[in-house]
């Protein structure tokens, strides 16, 4: 009997429910009791694990779990009543809270979403480092276990667990509140949340970090959490839709980015019929909604670039001129060597490899790109296209000395062999302009 036949257990129910329950209990118990909330949620899941196999899955698993977690919390508070004067008050609050009721009830459902938003804002507190925010988002909000966080970030278990503990201690020290930001603060606080979701998405999307299936789930989680924002009146803002558009349009290409053997495929090599049309449609819908108002964020520009690719019938018939314009604007808004490098690639598609090399070569030597294998790989490609097999070889070899995944290494070797083997015969090249 397959998992799908197990009644009542939706995919990722426990993971998502863990995030919701920790958020709801943290609201009731206060930000200081985040760890208590996590502990009783873990206990509730464990109780389900011990009982459901014998009793069967309850009719409403989510309600069962939150009730179980609340009861556990009440037990703990009762035990603590002697040392902790506030325990009875917290217990009373727990009993009075209605969120354990039917999640199908609109007011309850809305409160649960609010709790998750508050938790996102808390985990993206400006005083926390970016890595800490991403880790907390994954662990506390999205319900990933410490070992899953470790796998997602390619850390060993102990290091990941330690980082999470440190981030939570920092939250406690900061004495954060578990509330929606004040109207004046929404803009800045929301920017931090969006940044974090984008980092989370990229962590899953970028090929640089291995092929573990957990990585694809990071993209799905980032999209799921961003949708919670987009559907909430407080933060239903153009930049949220811009980020969602970007994530949907990029995620649509996930499957097509590797071939059956797991080898990386570049844009010109991808089978576009494998792009996820439903995600692309969602991406365009969010892109439309991102155009409300006059704010243009880097997400808007990146989403617009992604939309050019999504709309192109083929690599050759991509609107590179428009992409270049968008990169110009992105570079003006966010001057970074990585953006400059991407712009150089677009420039190469419009004005040829020599023009691209003219702007890309000076990036060689940028301290922030010193360990970025995509820089020499790009320079190699551009030299190859410019007909300079010798330099192409050198740059591919340099890229191979840098840190990258097995798939990337195989890809670079493949390219290198093509340059070495066929000399300057422009293997696999499709024309540019």
């Amino acid at each position, binding site marked *: *009997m*397959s*998992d799908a*036949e*197990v*009644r009542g*257990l939706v995919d*990722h*129910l*426990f*993971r998502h*429910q*863990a995030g919701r329950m920790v958020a709801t209990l943290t609201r009731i118990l206060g930000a200081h009791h985040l760890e208590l909330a996590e502990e009783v949620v*873990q206990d509730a*899941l*464990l109780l*389900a*694990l*011990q*009982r*459901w*196999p*014998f*009793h*069967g*899955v309850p009719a409403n698993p989510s309600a069962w779990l939150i009730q179980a977690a609340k009861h556990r919390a009440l037990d703990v508070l009762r035990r603590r009543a002697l040392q902790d004067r506030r325990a009875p008050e917290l217990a009373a609050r727990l009993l009075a809270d209605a969120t354990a009721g039917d999640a199908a009830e609109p007011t309850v459902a809305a409160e649960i979403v609010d709790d998750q938003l508050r938790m996102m804002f808390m985990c993206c507190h400006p005083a926390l480092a970016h890595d800490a925010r991403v880790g907390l988002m994954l662990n506390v909000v999205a*319900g*990933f*276990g*410490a*070992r*899953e966080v470790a796998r997602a970030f390619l850390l060993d278990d102990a290091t990941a667990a330690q980082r999470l503990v440190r981030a939570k201690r920092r939250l406690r020290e900061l004495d954060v509140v578990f509330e929606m930001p004040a109207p004046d603060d929404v803009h800045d606080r929301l920017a931090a949340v969006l940044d974090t979701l984008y980092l989370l998405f990229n962590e899953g999307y970028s090929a640089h970090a291995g092929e573990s299936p957990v990585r694809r789930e990071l993209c799905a989680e980032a999209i799921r959490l961003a949708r919670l924002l987009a559907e909430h009146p407080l933060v239903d803002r153009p930049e949220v839709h811009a980020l969602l558009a970007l994530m949907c349009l990029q995620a649509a290409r996930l499957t097509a980015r590797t071939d059956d053997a797991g080898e990386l495929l570049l844009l010109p090599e991808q089978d576009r019929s494998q792009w996820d049309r439903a995600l692309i449609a969602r991406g365009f819908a969010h892109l439309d909604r991102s155009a409300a108002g006059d704010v243009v964020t880097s997400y808007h520009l990146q989403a617009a670039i992604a939309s050019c690719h999504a709309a192109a019938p083929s690599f050759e018939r991509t609107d590179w001129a428009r992409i270049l314009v968008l990169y110009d604007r992105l570079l003006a808004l966010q001057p970074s060597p990585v953006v400059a490098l991407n712009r150089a690639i677009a420039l190469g598609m419009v004005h040829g490899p020599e023009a691209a090399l003219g702007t890309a070569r000076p990036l060689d030597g940028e301290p922030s790109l010193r360990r970025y294998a995509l820089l020499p790989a790009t320079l190699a490609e551009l030299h190859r296209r410019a007909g300079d097999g010798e330099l192409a070889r050198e740059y591919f070899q340099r890229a191979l000395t840098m840190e990258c995944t097995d798939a990337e290494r195989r890809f670079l070797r493949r390219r290198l062999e093509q340059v070495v083997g066929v000399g300057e015969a422009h293997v696999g090249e499709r024309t540019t302009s």
Partner: protein
Amino acid sequence: MSQFLVLLYDNVDDADQWLHMSPEEMQRVIEKLVAWSEGLSAQGRLVASEKLRDGSGRVLRGRGGSPTVHDGPFSETKEIIGGYFIVAAADYAEAVRLTRNCPHLEYGGTIEIREIEPMAVPEQAPAVA
């Protein structure tokens, strides 16, 4: 068809594995176990199942006068019954066949099967034991 008591023992030394499980992993364990018991049910072989409450029960011993009552099972016990299933099977061989793929075994647990004596007039003992 006879009935068999299938006792699921948890190994105390393995209890740690659950503490470090992520919600996703826990869900997968539940799905496997529930799929197993639903499989029994679908074949019409599941008679009953109950989870026993964690922690000590009571052990009563009669030695001469009034029975002694202790908390138990004993603290040195490494394996504790977590719960049981009652399954219908023709004989032990079939009861084992129905039970050997129980996911409980994948997590270090032990299973004991005992045939339940039917409440009926004693039959003639089988010719071959």
